[in-house]
């Protein structure tokens, strides 16, 4: 029997916590269907076609999508499409690279003993605990100094000069993702008995085949968890991207921030809704993976 009583106060507190956590998101999604174009107040849902006649302003003519009007507007906004494309490119590229580096680092930290191992282990936590803004400034300084030197040394001018852009954002995202991936894979490796690898080699598999057939499949859930974490972190990131992006590499967070300074239209909400759903699905996947992993072990 469960010795803990279900006190009503606890139940009320639970409901309040849920409201606190999810009410803003619900409101955000609700406003993405707002009939008002200023989005200061909620003026009801966008009406169906027959009711549009009474609507004021130009909305009547330009609303072939019904309630999903703002989503349609969004899909016609080239800036948003470009920003979304950039965000996904950055997320996929930085996840891919940081998963490889992070997994390799985790394996090395598990397998080898070396003088700087305690330092290496500790250094993983530095990018995690350091304020993002410090890291952003640091990376920006590094890039501008480096590019200045390289441009000077190689005599690059005009468009061929090295400058901030998609590349620098990807590199900076890799930099903050690697420690997360490493730590997640490391946790997975904690319970990994090295005799599995020895058994594979004993049965005639060389190092690479052993990794491919035994080590990799066994730590894959850890690698995927690490990858999904890196992916969502990259999708979300504002601060570091703010410092390292350049012309043509605007991401969604940067774009939304730009919009907010002008006027908040329900388009921003529509964008946020799509975004929230995407991240939600990603997190759901992560959870499913982890629970499957727990069932297996």
């Amino acid at each position, binding site marked *: 029997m469960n010795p803990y009583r279900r006190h009503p106060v606890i139940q009320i507190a639970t409901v309040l916590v849920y409201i606190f956590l999810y009410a803003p998101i619900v409101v955000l999604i609700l406003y993405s269907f707002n009939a008002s174009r200023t989005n200061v107040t909620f003026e009801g849902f966008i009406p169906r076609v027959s009711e549009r006649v009474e609507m004021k302003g130009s909305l009547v003519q330009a609303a072939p999508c019904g309630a999903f009007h703002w989503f349609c507007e969004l899909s016609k906004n080239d800036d948003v499409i470009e920003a979304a494309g950039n965000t996904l490119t950055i997320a996929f590229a930085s996840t891919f690279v940081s998963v490889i580096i992070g997994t390799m680092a985790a394996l090395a930290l598990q397998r080898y003993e070396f003088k700087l191992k305690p330092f290496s282990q500790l250094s993983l936590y530095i990018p995690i605990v350091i304020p993002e803004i410090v890291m952003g400034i640091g990376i920006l300084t590094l890039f501008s100094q480096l590019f200045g030197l390289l441009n000077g040394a190689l005599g690059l001018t005009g468009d061929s000069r090295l400058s901030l852009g998609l590349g620098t954002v990807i590199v900076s995202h890799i930099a903050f993702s690697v420690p997360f991936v490493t730590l997640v894979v490391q946790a997975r490796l904690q319970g990994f008995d090295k005799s599995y690898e020895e058994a594979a080699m004993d049965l005639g598999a060389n190092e690479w085949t052993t990794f491919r057939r*035994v080590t990799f499949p066994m730590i894959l859930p850890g690698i995927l968890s690490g990858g999904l974490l890196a992916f969502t972190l990259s999708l979300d990131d504002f601060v570091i991207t703010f410092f390292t992006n350049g012309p043509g590499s605007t991401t969604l967070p940067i774009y939304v921030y730009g919009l907010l300074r002008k006027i908040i239209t329900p388009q921003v909400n529509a964008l946020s809704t799509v975004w929230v759903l995407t991240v939600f699905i990603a997190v759901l996947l992560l959870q499913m993976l982890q629970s499957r992993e727990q069932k297996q072990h």
Partner: protein
Amino acid sequence: MASEFAVELRDVVKKFITPEGNELNAVDHVTMQIKNGEFFSMLGSSGCGKTTSLRMIAGFEWPTEGEVYIEGKPMGHTPPFQRKVNTVFQSYALFQHMTVFQNIAFGLEMEGADKNEIEKRVKRALEMVQLTGMERRKPKQLSGGQQQRVAVARALVKVPDVLLLDEPLGALDLKLRKEMQLELKALQQQLGITFVYVTHDQEEAMTMSDRIAVMSKGKVQQMGTPVEIYERPANRFVADFIGESNFLEGTIKSLSKEEAVVFVPQLNAELTGIPVSDGLVNGEEVTVSIRPEKVHISDKVLDVNSFTGRVTNTVYIGTDTHVFVDLMGKQIKVFEQNRISRLDPGSFYSIGQEVILVMWPDNVLVLKKG
């Protein structure tokens, strides 16, 4: 087979650095020759170097000094996947993401065997370990004993020159362990493959082995058949580690070609007619050892090595009754077999009773000191 010996270790040393930064010889100048087709055990308590020795044969570790030979060929730094030996791991190390079939087929795939061949050989291997029909199970769905069989099948399907087994029965309960001991021994005899078996369980080693190497502190203390090791232990460590022994300190008083007389100050008496082993010198200080089941309780004083003592305790353990007898302050353990069924076997000897112990000369061993 090219060589008389399946495995040979020549003066092998393996140094490790302890966490405190000290150098430690986990294996300390070990030389052993394991014959083809032999069931050979390395026996010792944890940290004696038996597993490290096995791992050097498998190729998971390389000797710091000396050389490991397999079928007469020096192994040097040959990686495990190029050695014709296979290992059954203590943890079994079955690949959890693969089925039983895939586990056993893994080694054959690595050899590049074709699909039909693999299927045929996996089937035979499963028959051999009586697991037919389990092909599609995952290791997690098997009992400990079944997992152990899969581990054996996975190693044996490769038809290695030598099968290495690292305490493979350690995780099983006693009854299953005893069954598996006999099964493994039968399998070894049937296949004629050399088995090198690591265990800390002396009974297990005695049951299965043709020869045993008793190890301690990285060194081989004695190598021989189970009978040799039990009946003629080379030193006090072996006599103490294998079975039980009563030890008495003494000095050789006289020495002829066949017999020795040892004076034991503790008993203030001489033990006479003791068989002589090599290298003993007159006047040498020695340890005399006699197995508890080889001490005879007599009702009258005989003319050889008879001593009167007093029973201090009796312990009934089913097959035997252990009788503890005080001989002039020295406690001697005697195992008396319970050959007659009765409900009060312990009371056959009562505490405080006077008994006469006879140590027949042939049962007494003289061990060198140190």
